[in-house]
């Protein structure tokens, strides 16, 4: 499957899955079945136990019937009461044995069915995790992270449940109803048919109900997540709410979301209750008929009281499993939609990976060269983001890239470690095309300090050593000193062991950026790119970080993308980018002398207030 065939929508909506048709659905189910069969012993044990358990279960009504009949023997007077009493021990013990054994085999059936599911889930988890980690940035740009998480949690669960809720249950129900029906009908065709009469109705109602409930459930989850979002945003933005005295408005927003969800919750009840009640009624109607006609036959002497007992207990045994037909249908339907979505992720092509025969990058002089590079984001057609970018940077040099927002600065940074592949031209490191070297070696050599720092939920220490988990304490502390973070960390209650990230202590934007800088400094890369990574750090701290970076820059190529021109002044070369092209290049002095775009920007920034101060709020 091509990567283009599967876009955001396919992973998100079931519309795509539905359009794929039954052939595709069947192949999905077959694929899950094959995954189950990779655990042949457990599958065999589960199915085998199911069969034994079903047969034992069907024996129970027979044994009960026989026992009941035996109690009548003495009344006929053919045997003595004592002998008849003695004879009762046989069916009683058989019953105890059959029931206990059925329990044991049902236990085995359920356990191995669960085990197969969990083992498949384990394998799928690893496959998903691996895939997610290796899919390129453009995939992750396209697919919403929330959808991907849902896929890896809920859809994976749907596939896991396939074996126990769909496949094993299919065997169980077919055998139970099939063999049971044969036994009943062969005993007494009329009573047998009446006893089974509720089965088609319940099978139909429970299937329809389950599918409907699932649709409602999915919708309800959606509405609950809207409600959750209303509440969460209210709390996170409580100052805005209070500042505008918007409590009443927020209550109204809450009430709408809440009512919407409540309506569906009620609908759930409205769908569930009439259907289950009707199913129970259908069952009892059939039982009533069995009882009535059975008693008639009993009076006529056509059947014994034991046979009637057999029919009645058979019905009670059948009642719950027949209701589960709906769950089974739902199990198949769920596995089919969840599986399709999950496999469409697992079948994604990895567009950025090692070329065949890729060799590790060899760093010699440490020269980075952009040669006539052009770029457009995949899937955006001809919207060219970068065109004809050519420049060269040697070890020890600092290159600064400036330009208006959206000019393509960050994109340039993202091309070097191959977060995206160029659409034209080449990028070379020491004469080697970066597409010809292994990804791991390239990303070891090239580090990008990102704008939005991501913190993992773990200690600060682990976060700093993220790229070098075997690092000792000293280099970690040194890196955090350079990033002006050391003193702050020491002030925290647990120091470097403080847990940060989503579930830990929160850091300010500036602190996060400093942590990211420290994290990158740990890597000792040959080429380092600072992608607007100091925006949230105050200028003074930035100065000190710059000084540290300059010491750090001697052995490498440094590329800086930043807004504050003061932080770029010392660069060896400044590239002014506009609209995807380099329009001016040179040192700070040269560019000022040119009196072009750079100079205009510089003037704007040097005296931002001058034009404003004269007009703004001046004394009335």
């Amino acid at each position, binding site marked *: 499957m091509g990567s283009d065939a599967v876009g955001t929508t396919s992973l998100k909506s079931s519309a795509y899955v539905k359009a794929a048709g039954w052939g595709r659905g069947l192949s999905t189910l077959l694929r899950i079945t094959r995954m189950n069969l990779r655990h042949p012993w457990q599958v065999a044990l589960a199915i085998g136990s199911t069969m034994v358990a079903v047969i034992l279960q069907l024996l129970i009504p027979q044994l009960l019937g026989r*026992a009941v009949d035996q*109690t009548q023997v003495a009344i006929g007077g053919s045997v003595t009461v004592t002998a*008849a009493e003695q004879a*009762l*021990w046989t069916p009683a013990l058989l*019953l*105890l*044995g059959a*029931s*206990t054994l059925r*329990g044991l085999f*049902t236990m085995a059936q*359920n356990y191995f069915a669960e085990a197969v599911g*969990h083992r498949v889930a384990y394998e799928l988890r690893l496959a998903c*995790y*691996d895939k997610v980690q*290796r899919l390129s*940035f453009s995939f992750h740009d396209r697919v919403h*992270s929330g959808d991907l998480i849902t896929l*890896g949690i809920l859809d994976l669960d749907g596939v896991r449940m396939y074996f126990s809720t769909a496949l094993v249950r299919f065997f169980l129900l077919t055998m139970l109803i099939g063999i049971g029906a044969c036994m009943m009908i062969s005993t007494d065709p009329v009573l047998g048919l009446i006893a089974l009469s509720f089965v088609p109705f319940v099978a139909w109602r429970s299937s329809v109900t389950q599918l409907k409930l699932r649709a409602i459930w999915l919708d309800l989850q959606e509405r609950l997540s809207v409600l*959750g979002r209303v509440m*969460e*945003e*209210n709390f996170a*933005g409580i*100052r805005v709410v209070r*500042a*505008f005295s*918007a409590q*009443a408005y927020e209550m109204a927003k809450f009430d709408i979301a*809440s009512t919407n969800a*409540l309506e569906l919750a009620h609908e*759930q*009840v*409205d769908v569930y209750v009439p259907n289950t009640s009707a199913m129970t009624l259908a069952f*009892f109607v059939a039982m009533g008929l069995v*009882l*009535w006609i059975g*008693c008639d036959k*009993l*009076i006529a002497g056509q059947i014994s009281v034991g046979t009637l007992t057999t029919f009645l*207990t058979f019905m*009670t045994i059948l009642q719950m499993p027949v209701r589960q037909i709906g769950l089974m249908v739902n199990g198949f339907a769920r596995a089919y939609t969840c599986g399709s979505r999950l496999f469409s992720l697992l079948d994604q092509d990895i567009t950025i990976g090692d070329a065949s025969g890729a060799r590790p990058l060899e760093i010699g002089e440490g020269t980075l060269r952009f040669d006539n590079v052009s770029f457009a984001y995949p899937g955006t057609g001809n919207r060219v983001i970068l065109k004809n970018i050519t420049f060269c940077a040697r070890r020890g040099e600092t290159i600064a890239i400036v330009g208006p927002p959206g000019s393509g600065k960050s994109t340039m940074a993202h091309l070097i470690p191959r977060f995206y592949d160029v659409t034209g031209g080449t990028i070379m490191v020491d004469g080697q095309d970066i597409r010809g070297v292994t*990804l791991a070696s390239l990303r070891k050599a090239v580090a990008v300090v990102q704008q939005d720092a991501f913190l*993992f*939920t773990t200690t600060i220490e*682990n976060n700093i050593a*993220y790229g070098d*988990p*075997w690092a000792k304490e000293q280099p970690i502390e040194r890196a955090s000193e350079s990033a002006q973070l050391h003193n702050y960390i020491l002030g925290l209650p647990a120091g470097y062991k403080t847990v940060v990230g989503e*579930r830990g202590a929160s850091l300010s934007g500036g602190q996060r950026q400093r942590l990211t800088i420290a994290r990158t400094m740990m890597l000792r890369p040959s080429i380092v790119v600072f992608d607007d990574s100091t925006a949230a750090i105050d*200028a003074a701290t930035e100065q000190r970080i710059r000084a540290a970076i300059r010491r750090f820059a001697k052995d490498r190529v440094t590329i800086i993308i930043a807004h504050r*021109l003061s932080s770029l002044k010392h660069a060896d070369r400044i590239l002014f980018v506009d609209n995807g092209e380099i329009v001016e290049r040179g040192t700070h002095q040269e560019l000022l002398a040119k009196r072009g775009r750079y100079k205009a920007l510089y003037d*704007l920034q040097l005296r931002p*207030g001058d034009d404003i*101060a004269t007009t*703004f*709020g001046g*004394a*009335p």
Partner: protein
Amino acid sequence: MAKRHANELEIEPNDSGRRPPRAVVGSHRIEEEIFGRAFDKNIIRRIWAFVRPYRAMAVVSLAALLIFTGTQLLIPLIIRYAIDHAITPAGADASALLEAAVAFALAILVNFGAAYAQETVVGKMAENVLFDIRRAMFAHLQKVSLSFMDKTEVGRLMSRLQGDVNSIHEFLENSIYSVGDIALLFGIIFVMLSVNFSLGFLTLSVLPALLIIRIVWLPRAREAFMAAQETNSVVNGALAEAIQGVRTVQSMDRQYVNFVLYDDKAHADLTTHLTAARYAQVMVPIVDGLTGLAMAVVIVVGGSMIMNGRVDVGVLVAYIFYIQRFFDPIRSLTLQYSVMQRAMASGKRLTDVLDVRIEIQDKPDARILAPEMDGSVEFRSVTFGYDPKQPVLKNVSFRVNPGETVALVGPTGSGKSSAMALVHRFYDVQQGQVLVGGHDVRDLTQESLGTQIAMVLQEPFLFTGTVFENIRYHKTEATREKVIEAAKVVGAHDFIMRLPDRYETQLGERGGNLSLGQRQLVSFARALVADAKILVLDEATASIDSYTEMVIQKALRKLLEGRTALVIAHRLATIRGADRIIVLQNGQVIETGNHEKLMAMGGLYSKLYNLNYSSFDDIPEEEADPTGQAASRT
């Protein structure tokens, strides 16, 4: 798939000393107490307050439930009656059979009706109570003091409003069904004993065995289930983290290490689930074995009673029916214990939220701040601290005249933001007074005060929704023209028109698809639409690119036109443009005047200004340090 272990990672050649990497994926949640006491009178009372409005429904459902249970008990008895009359040696009694058929038909119709009524009513009532509790909490949180909201994590509140209310819901539903279970259990016991005491007694003797096994089994099984839940949340958390942090993972080339670590977590999850499955399934043969035993007893003992003519065969059949039902109530009742423990722990946390005191309330005779008021703001000897023992504002007095723009300037922690919060009465002062339009803010309704004061916060916070909805925000009466007009004034119109759906463009979470500068402009437009006489503004500190900066300064000028403004200023451009500058240090006003006057004074302001930073926040701490030279000179 081959199993890999994290300790393999230690062999990596990176380091001579073999120690595990400083790396984890997925983290354990900081768990809250899930199980406490199973019964707490106070909590029950509080929950009851929410059920009270539906007590009629509760009574109806209980009645329906008891009727339902009654029919369940009755059906085997009708079967017995039918069978006994069908095989009477004296010859079948046709009318008795018809009676039985009618009784059966009635019983199942009543059963249908009762089940329908009871499940519908219980289901809906429990949902209603759940939504009511949530609404009450949400409404309460709209009124509690900001200091409570500041110190409570959003995630924690969300788990109150989602997880905890759900366990109350579960509790309510289960409680009603438990009543049914108890009724069924005692009903079966009663019927079995009264039909034939000795046979009933012998059959029922297996019940305590199951009860004891369940009680021994329950705590162990619960532990296994919780372990499975915990490992599951860890693997899911690890996956979510890998997805959200994928850009960092890839750029740091951590895929391999992470995969191996994840494998460990996933494998642990597999193991705990298999253990949990073993615990869950072990009950199956026990229940089945005990059922078989009870049946064997009925057959041997009951059979011989039949032969001796002490009971009819119908009794035997009825008993077989009862035996198949009497383990169910025990199973659900033992589970109900855990449900109750969970509900009490949740209920405690819910009432804790509902009981947070509302500190700032309108006085009974609070006045409405008229829109015609002059728009002045005055601080009179204000002393305030979040902790009264540590005031952040000490005896601060100043006045902002109608239409004037006053800049508050000072190092971090000087009390600027607190002063801003007091104007809106987010907190109450400890001493002195804050006056708006000549009225003490404590004498005004909060609602009217909020309408006359527009605030722009340092961090622009946007809500999920369209651009239009964000600019309009609570002013639902604002027309589209008015919104576009405001956007044009602050210079946001151009970029909005370039968005895919213009004003109807959906903003991502927190306005994620807009840049910081753009979000700032939208928040300015929002303040403009609010159309208040007084503007309180905290200037953003983060540096934005010069192009956007220029637009923002222009927008600011428009925003301040014709309003009284109190600005926490960081940028020199803003500060110099103000009519008056108030320099705060350590919670005290140390200098006031316009730029020229303050420069002439040669105090802290002029010193800071002469350092030549474009923003006061950029000044290194040691230079702005109040205990340093700067302070000693003033």
